């Protein structure tokens, strides 16, 4: 009872179409740093949302014991009152408010309804000292870097008298110095008696800092390891996370590569928000018909920015460079031009840029290719339905009918709708940005099959992905991008994760 601060047992959480968590167990000892590892979409974040009350009691099955008591959290407020604070990947700070205001947001230091500013700033300074944040409490959040913002989040948690601190990918956006500082801070908090749960993809950090690790795969608990007792190494964790032979994750594919479809030369793009900063710097690449080409790069390398600036200048300013379609120079000034020249771009952020979530499947599929279903501006609704029904079958979209609202579909099925939408425009070149993000393993295989099929139809496909195994398993050739520059071009037979990673980090001094 006293040894474990948290016990979650038999947690099952179902979304329409997907079982996100199935009978998951998690036990965290008091005063330890407990890591949770798993692939994208394994269910780590869902589990934390269950714990913190984002998915309230009753929407999941199973039992949560915190400090020996059964918990039935109805909201985040409930879990915070119990002493559980979660810090999400996307920081929840208000950029125009000061550090001190953010630290006490929702937890204001007030006397009879009026904010006590002296106390606010004084106590904020105290908390900032604890997390090692050397700034003035009245500085606005927008004026400090991401690393320091992360510290503000932790200070905010401390202000709530946290007993269990959950960090979701805390170092994903941080540079090495900031990461090291953050890990030191977590060790310090542990010594003060605060239990930490950390979700991380960076296994070297996990082995460096964690006392135990729980591995989750496909929505199930695989194992919990004691780092010291079990002599856990990175390879040991990977074995648990992957748990299946790598070679059957990808459908077999023999490419038939044809002539050049798209060539980009000396492509340079400046940031719209930070004047003078080059986001893409003199990038050149070539895509051929029937070929699946990968684009590898770390977060912030400029992958999405490169793709969107090519796709009708939807990102960036002062764009320069040349685009050749089928060997002829073309001018692409907007999305309509891009579609007319046979380009398609399936976004990494489906909900924001890809879909109209309140609309049904058929109207989402027809959104980009509507002109092709219309005569003199009039849409042939019957043809639209028929086409949607064809995609419903050929793409295996799991929904009762094409009249179903897209917002209710699972991630994998939403992605199939996005792909259908672009296939309908009959493109020659498809740029797929993180095509399997947030999709469960079975659906990933289906998406890979679709990508292979598109290549076999003679289309050129550019796949952008942060998962190197995916690029290695899927692509015929991989470009690496680092700080906006193309640093390498590796054919499939020569590509290894180490080689790509080396090129992806090249020039980052």
């Amino acid at each position: 009872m006293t040894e474990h601060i948290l016990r979650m047992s038999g947690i099952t959480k179902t979304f329409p179409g997907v079982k996100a968590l199935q009978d998951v167990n998690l036990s965290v000892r008091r005063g330890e740093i407990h890591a949770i590892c798993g692939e994208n979409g394994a269910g780590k974040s869902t589990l934390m949302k269950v714990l913190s009350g984002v998915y309230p009691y009753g929407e999941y099955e199973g039992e949560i014991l915190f400090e020996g008591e059964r918990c039935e959290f109805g909201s985040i407020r409930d879990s915070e009152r119990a002493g559980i604070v979660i810090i999400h990947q996307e920081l929840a700070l208000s950029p125009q408010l000061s550090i001190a205001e953010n630290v006490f947001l929702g937890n204001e230091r007030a006397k009879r309804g009026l904010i006590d500013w002296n106390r606010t700033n004084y106590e904020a300074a105290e908390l900032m000292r604890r997390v090692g944040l050397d700034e003035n409490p009245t500085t606005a959040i927008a004026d400090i870097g991401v690393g320091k913002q992360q510290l503000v989040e932790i200070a905010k948690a401390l202000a709530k008298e946290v007993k269990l601190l959950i960090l979701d990918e805390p170092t994903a956006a941080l540079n090495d110095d900031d990461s090291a500082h953050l890990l030191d801070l977590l060790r310090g908090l542990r010594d003060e008696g605060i239990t930490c749960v950390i979700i991380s993809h960076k296994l070297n950090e996990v082995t460096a800092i964690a006392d135990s690790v729980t591995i989750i795969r496909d929505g199930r608990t695989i194992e919990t390891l004691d780092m010291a007792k079990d002599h856990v190494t990175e390879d040991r964790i990977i074995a648990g996370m992957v748990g299946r032979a790598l070679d059957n994750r990808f459908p077999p594919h023999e490419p038939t590569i044809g002539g050049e479809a798209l060539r980009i030369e000396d492509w340079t793009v400046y940031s719209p928000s930070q004047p003078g900063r080059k986001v893409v710097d003199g990038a050149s690449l070539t895509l051929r018909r029937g070929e699946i080409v990968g684009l590898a790069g770390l977060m912030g390398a400029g992958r999405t920015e490169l793709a969107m600036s090519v796709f009708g200048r939807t990102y960036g300013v002062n764009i320069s460079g040349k685009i050749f379609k089928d060997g002829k120079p073309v001018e692409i000034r907007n999305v309509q031009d891009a579609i007319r020249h046979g380009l398609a771009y399936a976004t990494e952020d489906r909900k924001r840029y890809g879909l109209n979530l309140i609309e049904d499947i058929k109207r989402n599929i027809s959104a980009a290719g509507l002109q092709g279903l219309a005569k003199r501006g009039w849409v042939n609704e019957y043809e639209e339905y028929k086409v949607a029904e064809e995609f419903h079958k050929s793409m295996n979209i799991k929904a009762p009918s094409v009249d179903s609202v897209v917002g209710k579909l699972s991630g994998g099925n939403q992605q199939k709708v996005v792909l259908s939408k672009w296939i309908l425009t009959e493109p020659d070149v498809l740029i797929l940005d993180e095509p399997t993000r947030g999709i469960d393993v079975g659906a990933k295989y289906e998406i890979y099959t679709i990508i292979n099929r598109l290549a076999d139809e003679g289309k050129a496909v550019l796949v952008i992905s942060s998962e190197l195994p995916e690029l290695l398993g899927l692509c015929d050739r991989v470009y690496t991008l680092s700080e906006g520059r193309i640093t390498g071009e590796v054919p499939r037979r020569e590509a290894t994760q180490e080689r790509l990673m080396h090129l992806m980090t090249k020039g980052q001094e």
Partner: protein
Amino acid sequence: MSSITPADVEVGAKGDGGAPRQPGRVSLGGLSLNLRSSGIYIAFALIIALFSVLTDGALLTPQNISNIIVQNSYVLILAIGMILIIIAGHIDLSVGSVVAVTGALSAVLMVNMGLPWPLALLITLVAGALIGAWQGYWIAYFGIPAFIVTLAGMLLFRALTLTVLGNQGIGPFPDQVRTLANGFTNGYLGNIGLGPLGGADLFSLLIGLVAIAGMFASQWRSRNARKGYGQTVEPMALFVLKLVAGAALILFLVVQLARFKNLPWVLVLLAVLVLAYSLMANRTVFGRQIYAIGGNLQAAVMSGVKVKSVVFWIFVNMGVLSAIAGIIFAGRLNQAGPTAGNSFELDAIAAAFIGGAAVQGGVGKVVGAITGGLIMAVINNGMSLIGSPSERVMLVKGIVLLAAVAFDVWTKRRAGVSR
């Protein structure tokens, strides 16, 4: 996020491959969906029934029906333009002032300058389009929120009205314009006896029958086309029931009007506008793009929708419809006055929201907005028939608006559609 009811889980189809298409479930789902989106029409029917009882049937007498239509035609015309703007996620607060300034312009052209009325009408409509283009430019191309641009427009065009009119009314209008606003079709074919109902205008009745026949034919054709494309259609009994109900409604309306003074010209105009704009919203690329913009602006941009141009043109359209409403309002009063159109924008916006438009955009129907406008019209008319003071009418209208939007938000939350 939002709660998930067992029914939704079922709809989401568990990973069992393929899509189960049991006809029973689909039609059941379709019916429940229909109930949700048809709540507004049921509410309309209930309100009519309520006031029929409260007024001892005075609400549905021939003359009163005619009054309701003629007195509210301009707000209904505005509601058609407003619903498109609200679907796209914008708002227009200036329509009342645009009604005033276009009415004033038409008065100056026809009365002071003595231009022939068709020419004056045309110039006024062009002026309405230019006003819409002015606002559309600032909103679509310059990027100022519509709320601000049209709030400024509300002041600007009211000021312009006062300048043009020099603080006094201008009238009277030519007979033709007054007939359009206030008049009725002639009894071209004479009267016909309807037994106990007395005499009625044959021409009006024939128009009604033609409308019913048109409705039957188009519904039948669309049903067959759907079947031809392998879509599921509603059961025959339900289909026939709907048609009969629709026919009965049209017939009742036409017979009542034919017994009074024949068809009001504004009703003819309204019918044409509603039909044309419903088709435009649902069946044209332009109409679809309005929904796409309101549903997810970013996704619309990334799908190649020319967002700026679409937004610009729906404001131009609003300007033209405001000009039509302006002429009709001035013609009805036989005078263009400085306070014309006061608070019309609020009535039009309320009509759109009562009629099922979503506050965040992306949802709404032209017919819904018209129904919303008629609900308010019936409440207005019914309450004044039973002698309620105007403050009580206002109170009831406010509650109805709030309740309608609350109902919309509530059903959406229950449906579990996350945005």
